[in-house]
């Protein structure tokens, strides 16, 4: 419990922070920076939101482990009392339903290297892939390539974005957010892709592996056909140019 002294100190510091924030605003304005300047970079924004999902998922999994133990105990008790009255088949059905209920919302996608292929350990200028097709109206607004990730953002004038990323398989976390999404495996020219769309809007992503990398394309508002078209258009321009020569 805070005493009067502590409360007054806290209030005074809070007022001081108010003043400092006004000073910062004024200073930045005087230096010529407007509000538009202070928007997060798409890549950082995306990473933070991804982290929020992951942090939440960790909590859910921690809770679930307790829930699973409790549910298992209840299941054993119920089945213990029911065994004389149910068949083996009925028991199996009950058990399967229980497992499906626990696991169907949170998917874990594990990407594995192809054993027949040399493991790719980095991205260099010769191994950068980009989509050769993006829908009309979209322009590149951000492009970052480092050793482990190639990240490109396209945006149209309505503010809808396409986030494209190419990562090394080992660098990709196993968790992909599939919560409240309809999941579908689709056949494409690169083999099978995982397509996931939010149930309530046109927010979707596809992810797939090719040439030793994991590709992930996330869109705000694009039809499934268009998204697949973007995904199927990825090309390595260096290889493409060399072949053309």
């Amino acid at each position, binding site marked *: 419990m*805070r*005493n*009067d*002294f*502590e*409360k*007054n*100190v*806290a*209030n*005074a*510091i*809070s*007022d*001081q*922070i108010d003043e*400092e*924030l006004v000073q*910062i*605003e004024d*200073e*930045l304005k005087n230096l010529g*920076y407007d*509000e538009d*300047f*202070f*928007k*997060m*970079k798409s890549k*950082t*924004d995306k*990473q*933070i*939101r991804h*982290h*929020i*999902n992951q*942090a*939440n998922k960790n*909590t*859910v999994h921690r*809770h*679930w482990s*307790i*829930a699973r133990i*409790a*549910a298992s105990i209840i299941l054993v008790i119920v089945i213990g009392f029911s065994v004389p009255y149910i068949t083996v088949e009925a028991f199996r059905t009950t058990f399967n339903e229980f497992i499906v*209920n*626990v696991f169907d919302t949170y998917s874990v996608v594990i990407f594995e290297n192809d054993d027949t292929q040399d493991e790719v350990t980095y991205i260099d200028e010769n191994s950068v892939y980009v989509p050769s097709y993006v829908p009309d109206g979209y322009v590149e607004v951000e492009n970052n390539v480092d050793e482990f990730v190639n990240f490109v953002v396209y945006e149209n004038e309505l503010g809808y974005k396409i986030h494209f990323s190419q990562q090394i398989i080992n660098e990709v976390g196993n968790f992909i957010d599939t919560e409240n999404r309809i999941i579908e495996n689709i056949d494409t020219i690169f083999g099978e892709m995982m397509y996931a769309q939010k149930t309530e809007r046109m927010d979707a992503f596809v992810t797939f592996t090719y040439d030793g990398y994991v590709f992930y394309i996330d869109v705000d508002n694009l039809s499934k056909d268009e998204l697949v078209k973007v995904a199927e258009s990825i090309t390595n321009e260096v290889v493409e140019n060399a072949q053309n020569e």
Partner: protein
Amino acid sequence: MLMMFMTMLDSDEEKQKITTLYELYCNLMLKVAFSVVRDYDLSNDIVQDSFYKIIKVIDNIDDVYSKRARNLVVIIVKNTAINELGRRNRAIMLDFDEVSDLKDDHVEPDDEVINSFVLDQIPKKIKQLPPKYRDVLQLKFDCEFSNVQIAEVLGISQELCRKRLQRGRQLLLKSMKEGELM
């Protein structure tokens, strides 16, 4: 099943709280970070680091719209930016607290000191207090953080955190006592 439902509800609320906090304060955080480091890319990195720190103490934030939440966000991002700037400039920043022991002029807030006249003086005295002491006092008194939490979000050792709390409190009380005598 009820238990599973309840735990999921908690998580959804927590997720919503974190997301709201981020959306409310990301621009403010960017401004505060930029005002310290004057580099847009670096400011983005600082906001990201700061936000990860905030997620760790999200349980201490009841209302994301409160001043308490905003103050916490500002303090964390400002200190992360200052630490980062110091690290990048390779400045040898010898903190007075780290190289000296506390003097024996320990002052406790007793009844003599804490009267309404003295309480009225606090806002004026707070302005004179160096920011590093203000920040730990705010996290302690307003956010009610433990020393471990304060040390973690400010990127300092627990020992330094303890010393700053003690020295901040001492400085404040001492200056108020002096003010009272004047």
